[in-house]
């Protein structure tokens, strides 16, 4: 993992390598180098298997983290390639030509996070949600509880008591 990192570090200006396990590492890459890095990993370094492709919403930082997790079958190693993109108007280059299956991931990211992948087939076609007009639901600022409270009725007659408050009210209501 370290040797691989050393080979690629300067060419693709990789960030620090996080060695999560001997067989799993994470690196950060800039947007300009992402595609070239993926191609290099896939075609030269043997990381042919796109295990998953997903996003993490760092709402507080105004950024999405895209994680491309690649697997080298021969050496049984995984490399997670991290890329930070701005949340505002989030958009990224498509990789469906490298891995056709990425089309599905990109459709999902578009729908669930609102990250656009121009040129990706059917990227704006409904994937899981049909007729969804609210915020992309996997964004951190979409509040599922609020949505559910507004959309569904609560069962009537449910009431709970906090033990501490209940005891106060029953045993020493004046605070003394």
């Amino acid at each position: 993992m370290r040797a691989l990192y050393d080979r690629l570090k300067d060419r693709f200006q990789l960030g620090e390598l996080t060695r999560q396990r001997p067989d799993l590492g994470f690196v950060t890459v800039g947007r300009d180098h992402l595609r070239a890095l993926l191609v290099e990993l896939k075609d030269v370094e043997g990381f042919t298997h796109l295990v998953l492709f997903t996003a993490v919403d760092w709402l507080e930082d105004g950024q999405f983290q895209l994680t491309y997790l690649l697997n080298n079958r021969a050496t049984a190693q995984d490399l997670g390639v991290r890329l930070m993109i701005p949340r505002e108007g989030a958009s990224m280059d498509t990789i469906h030509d490298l891995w056709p299956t990425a089309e599905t991931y990109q459709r999902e990211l578009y729908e669930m996070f609102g990250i656009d992948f121009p040129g990706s087939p059917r990227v704006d076609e409904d994937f899981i949600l049909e007729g969804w007009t609210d915020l992309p639901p996997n964004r951190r600022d979409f509040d599922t509880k609020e949505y559910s409270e507004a959309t569904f009725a609560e069962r009537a007659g449910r009431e709970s008591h906090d033990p501490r408050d209940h005891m106060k009210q029953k045993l020493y209501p004046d605070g003394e």
Partner: protein
Amino acid sequence: MRDVLSPFTAWKHLFREPVTVLDPLNDRPGADRYRGFHQNDLEKCIGCGTCEVICQNAAIDMVPVSDPEDGDSGLRPMIDYGRCCWCALCVDVCMTGSLTMSNDYVWADANPDVFRFTPGVDPKPWNEEEKGYQRPGARVLASTERVHMGERTAKDRIDNFEEIVAGYTREEAMIEADRCVECGLCVATCPAHMDIPDYIKAIREQDYDKGLQLLYQTNPFSEVCGRVCTHNCETACAARHDGDPIAIRWLKRHITDEVPYERYVDLIGKPEAATGRKVAIVGSGPAGLTTAYDLARMGHKVVVYEARKSPGGMPRYGIPEYRLPYDMLDRDIDVIRAMGVEIVCNTRIGEDITMETLRADNDAVVLSIGLHLGRSTRIPGAESPDVDTAVPLLRKITDGEEVPVPEKLVVIGGGNVAMDIARSMARLQQVKHGKVGVTVTALESFDHFLADADEVRESREEGIEIFDARGPQEIVTFKSGKRKGRVKGLRTWLCDSIFDDQGRFNPHYDESDELVHPADMVIEAIGQAADVSILGKDLTEALEWTRGRIRVDVDGQTSEPWLWSAGDCVNGPDVVHAVADGHRVAQSINAMLAAKEEAAT
């Protein structure tokens, strides 16, 4: 050809016994560990609500079932089976092990509302079912073991009065604080209703400033209580049912250890603007000073009168320094002073100033004089010059006065004061004679012992002999010779019951089991009394009394409208009760002053 014929072998199944369960409703009980409908042992359940907290789908409501009492909120979990996912985290996390699951899973009903019930309360066929999921072994979702408190060994501590316990390090405190489940059952039991779960949370979050502020909201004696509080809260702690209770007292102390003392006053904040009202307080123990602290923060002018050389009351003159270092007490008192409270020492009421003067000069007077007179057993021989009571001795030790230190002495009593004097004397013996020779005889058996278990353990470590269930009969004195009248020992009988059928104090002895504990000195530590002689004849007659104590109402007000009383002298001996008393009295006085103010304008 084989591939054409082979499938026909399926026909042989026609001649096999059917594998279906004919009557699944009755013939198919769940497995022994099946997670079916819940059961709840109402006697064991304490209504801590931890099950509700852990439920990931909000299926549990805590509903009132019985009256709350110490350590039991009276609430019980009601489960909505429309939400329950049968994960049994509630069973795993249950602090008492009361919540379990039966192996019953078959129940059909057209009415959806019946699937919401309170296990154990509502009669269900599976309530007595033995089978079903029960937590195997101990609780694992939160630690059951208290973090050990470091303390000096008996060898290190026996020849000095330095503090025994070390206090938690940050790491230890974090681990101990992590064990708390924030149920809050302890808050009702704490006489001062301290925000225990909140300050423990502050430790977890390493926000000691906030922790200190929380402490001072309810208790200006945090240094003291963090060391010597009777910690009734720990007897109400949910964690004690399956493991050790949270070390609430040590955690409180940890907060005071971590915040630099210079920051205390800043964190607590300034008192309110002066009101011009004046209150006098007699006695500078926890009750008096808490009242003073509260009133001062409300903007009233408070003067505290103390007969002794230094303020502090029982924490200074009753509790040995190895349990509560005096400079820690001084830290608490100095914070109170910083709120504007004036403490006048060496001023005895009735001699240096009278109650009448106080009454005339102030809007209200608070009497918080504690219990500083020792009680005597009055058994034969108790009048010997070698017999003393514990409290005056402890005071002398504090003030550095000379006390007799014989090689062999006996303490009568089984409470914490008995332990205090026994261990103090043991230290003096060690210094003077190089060995310990203290025997404690207690009326109570170890099953019902009055002193804290820690005190008993530590006393024994220090070489003190403790005899339980011994009733003192006579202090044996030399009848003749050079030492005529001097103490020779204590004669005791076995005490087989303390209370009679009506529950009255009436010890019964087994005379055949007699022991004589040899001693050169006997110390009686069987109780204390208030020195009410300072009140003067007129006031004593004017006040209403109840069983030897001044009668007060729930707010601590006596039958005289200008006089309140608080602390041990009216409510029995305990620091944190005294603090609670102080708050109550301060509230009451403040209300009275506010009413006066309103009437004036």
